[in-house]
């Protein structure tokens, strides 16, 4: 049956209930029960969003797409910061695998500080496990300091560190005091914490806020000051967004954390608005910045040309300045024609095709925008490490039950800064903006944006992925590197939406153009028609060979 995918057309029509049944059929009862709550058929229940189980443990033995807390903390959030020396405290592996593998781009200029091409590790040995690794950690920090004299050194704990009880925070504190001119701080992001990368994001958010954000009050000049949260500059997305913001005259003080520097984080509390791209990985910082410094946040999305225009308008609307509003409109008016030209060329070749997206904590949602623009329907989607609010919207937050795994992730209590808290807008102004349609602190999640009877599946695993593809035969499947080739073996093009394989940027206007062309290439590549040899297609031998 799999062999058919190459030739047969998409099967979006299939009854989703049937599909769900098929997906669960092979599981042991216990697993089936659990998974059935994470596999949702999208149907409006008297206009409330249906409920899905998310952010819960993956069943051991089930081949998951998920990674660990360390990956979420060191790999995702801190990885893109170029002028912090990020030292992994642990055996060599974790540092090695998170070395340059995410395609976060950064621009340090010809001679700026840039440690992103380096991998730093304490390479713990058994003696360190037995006698403790604090000494080695301290020595490693000292060696890094002596070699590079960086502004900051960050320490990341791997699994054994917590178990053997190395007090990395005290070591960091001690070294910071010793150096005087170098901020040293640590992250207890052992891989076993939480149920996915997500816990790592949270831990990263906490420490960023505790140790860097707001450390530098040197005034940042310029008008329309914002921070961009949850944008990691994969394949240059951040560069394209910066280009557009600059063109609009919007000042981005800090991006968390694509193409970022220590100084950007330290001064980010001076912004007047936080624009949140990836809600999942960074909303904690957004909330804390609001509580402590009075900076409101809105959800934006620069994936998709329309979405980009919409997000720019939201920001302009927030500042409410006529000049800015006009400039934004001018920029949109200038950029869109190029986008539309390419779309007009490509769309006839993509229209009506189907896509599946299973990735991240926001991309599975954001990229549906681009597929919509291409006239492609997303017939199934889900996140790898998101929470219910990313599916259903933040209104579910109050009644999320906190399970054993989440309980262990620190929630830091933040209060308004006695001296620096400054509401950016009066209540009156805010109310007016809300009335005018601008939503603060709001994210409605993926499900409401998906069509009826599509499938929403949390923590999709390899077995289910293949079944889905075999049954529904999408024209393209989006996930991560681990999933890429098992899907393609089935004859369905697979696009990575973590690292983009080799492409990008896909954000903003130029990114939309890139993505249109890339999807065109993938769904129309001749190669999918080569999978069967002539003798496999017609095993019967014709009577005799036709000599000339």
């Amino acid at each position, binding site marked *: 049956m799999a062999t058919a995918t190459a030739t047969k057309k998409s099967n979006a029509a299939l009854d989703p209930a049937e599909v769900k049944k098929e997906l669960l059929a092979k599981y042991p009862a216990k*697993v089936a029960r659990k998974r059935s709550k994470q596999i949702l058929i999208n149907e409006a229940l008297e206009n409330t969003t249906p409920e899905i189980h998310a952010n819960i443990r993956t069943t051991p033995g089930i081949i998951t797409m998920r990674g660990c807390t360390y990956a979420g903390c060191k790999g995702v959030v801190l990885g893109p910061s170029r002028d912090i020396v990020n030292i992994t405290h*642990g055996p060599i592996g974790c540092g090695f695998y998170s070395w340059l593998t995410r395609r976060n781009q950064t621009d340090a200029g010809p001679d700026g500080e840039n440690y992103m091409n380096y991998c730093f590790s304490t390479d713990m040995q058994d003696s360190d496990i037995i006698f403790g690794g604090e000494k080695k*950690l301290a020595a490693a920090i000292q060696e*890094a300091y002596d070699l590079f004299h960086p502004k900051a050194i960050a320490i990341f704990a791997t699994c054994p560190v917590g178990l053997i009880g190395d007090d990395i925070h005290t070591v960091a504190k001690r070294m910071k005091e010793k150096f005087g001119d170098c901020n040293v701080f640590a992250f207890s992001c052992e891989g076993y914490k939480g149920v996915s990368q997500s816990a790592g994001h949270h831990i990263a958010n906490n420490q960023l806020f505790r140790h860097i954000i707001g450390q530098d009050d040197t005034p940042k000049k310029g008008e329309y000051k914002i921070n961009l949260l949850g944008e990691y500059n994969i394949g240059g997305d951040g560069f394209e967004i910066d280009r557009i913001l600059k063109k609009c005259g919007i000042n981005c003080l800090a991006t968390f954390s694509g193409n970022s520097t220590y100084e950007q984080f330290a001064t980010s509390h001076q912004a007047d608005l936080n624009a949140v791209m990836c809600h999942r990985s960074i909303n904690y910082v957004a909330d804390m910045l609001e509580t402590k410094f009075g900076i409101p946040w809105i959800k934006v999305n620069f994936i998709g040309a329309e979405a980009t225009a919409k997000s720019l308008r939201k920001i302009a609307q927030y500042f409410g300045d006529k000049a800015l509003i006009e400039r934004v409109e001018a920029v949109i008016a200038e950029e869109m024609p190029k986008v539309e030209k390419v779309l007009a060329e490509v769309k006839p070749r993509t229209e009506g095709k189907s896509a599946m997206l299973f990735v991240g904590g926001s991309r599975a949602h954001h990229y549906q925008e681009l597929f919509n623009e291409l006239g492609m329907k997303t017939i199934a989607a889900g996140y790898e490490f998101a929470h219910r609010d990313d599916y259903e919207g933040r209104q579910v937050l109050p009644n999320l039950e906190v399970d054993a795994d989440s309980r262990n992730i620190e929630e830091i209590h933040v209060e308004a800064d006695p001296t620096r808290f400054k509401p950016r807008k009066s209540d009156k102004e805010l109310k007016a903006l809300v009335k005018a349609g601008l939503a603060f602190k709001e994210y409605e999640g993926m499900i409401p944006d998906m069509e009826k009877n599509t499938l929403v599946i949390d923590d999709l695993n390899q077995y289910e992925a293949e079944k889905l593809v075999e049954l529904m035969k999408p024209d393209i499947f989006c996930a991560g590197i681990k999933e890429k080739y098992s899907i393609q073996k089935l004859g369905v093009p697979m696009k990575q939406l973590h690292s983009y394989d080799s492409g990008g940027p896909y954000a903003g206007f130029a990114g939309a153009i890139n993505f249109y062309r890339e999807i065109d290439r993938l769904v129309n590549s001749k190669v999918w028609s080569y*999978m069967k040899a002539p003798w496999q297609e017609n095993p019967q031998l014709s009577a005799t060979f036709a000599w000339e």
Partner: protein
Amino acid sequence: MLLRHTPKEITERSALTINPAKTCQPIGAMYAALGIHGCLPHSHGSQGCCAYHRSALTRHYKEPISASTSSFTEGASVFGGQANMLQAINNIFSVYDPEVIAIHTTCLSETIGDDLKQIKKKAQDEGKIPAGKTVLGANTPSYVGSHVTGFASMTKSMAMLAEPTGKKNGKVNVVPGWVEPADMEELKRMMGLIGVKYILFPDTSGVLNGPLSGEYKMFPEGGTTVAELKSCGDSSGTLALGEWCSADAARWLDTNCKVPCKVLDMPFGLAATDRFIEALRTIAGVTIPEEISHERGQLVDMISDMHQYLYHKKVALVGDPDQLIAMTEFLVSLDMWPTHIVTGTPGNRFEKRIKEITKDLPYEVNVKAAGDMFLLHQWIKNDPVDLLIGNTYCKYIARDEDIPYVRWGFPILDRQGHQYFPTVGYKGGIRLLEKILGVLMDRLDRDAPETSFELVM
């Protein structure tokens, strides 16, 4: 510069590893396990390890890599991972139905002291292992050795499946070590030509260089079967290719099954391949077929034809001990000058062996075990080379220092070919030569003034 903070001046480092020339044990165990037919590697630790290893192997092979994990949570890390593993075994057999589960531990499960044997026994007692299915395990603490050690441990665990019957099977065990699927295929081709009956383990050929046919086979045709592994205790002997990768398995069979063994270098290059072929000839008491002699002669012919481009060229190498030892010997035999040699894998024997191989060279080589690429780069800054050989991470050094560069080793993340074309044996030697000559000659063509741009080379 990409590595703009690397100073020329070399300072002693005791604690900080920068740009490692190794990774951790479990990925080696995972790669080895993929060389067993119908095997699902299982990582007993938290999710991240498995995700990282699968990603790295996938990027290297551009092929699907299936492996499962015990998905440790904080609870498991405190109370032990037995429950997770038992649950995993049950789920794996019901959902994926492999012939074999090959479990390897991680720093996490090793630190908390999970006992694989005991857990496996419990799984058996609870009937979680269906009849005819195999579960094996290897201890691969990430804080000991390197990915090479993990490969060796899992390979040894394969040998430990041996069930000697007392009746010889007339075969030779050949333990190829960490080489590419194409290399294992080439070893089999050569042994086939020579007419030696063998059990090759592990064998990833047909597993990690698969076709695109519209079908996804989680467990492809390739791999050493459990039946073969059981039988390897009845073999007439074991040839272990590579002290680091393969010797443990061979010696275990020697001690425990009275299967004598011989540890050879990996058959990269002329001399090492000669020793391998010579060993097969003696063991099997056969005459080497003309075809093999012909391939050998072609390699020698190419060396003689191109010698002027190789002669006294300085080379920096980084990789794994067994591969580097053979490659260094090969380079010396080409009248090239291996100058800086680094492996991240610990072991003084490595430095000793390299010094032996290079003792007749008119200079002292820089060699370090448990070194890193930061040091290699510094050595190069202090004593520039004409050629750099190593994995994909070398490209940052090659570009900064503008050095001709041949990708060889693990991982290769940015080029194709290693899955399909062997570098072992004589044909492999010709391919290595082709690649080395290619980058050296490209450089000549790039840098030649117009007065001396050459048509014939």
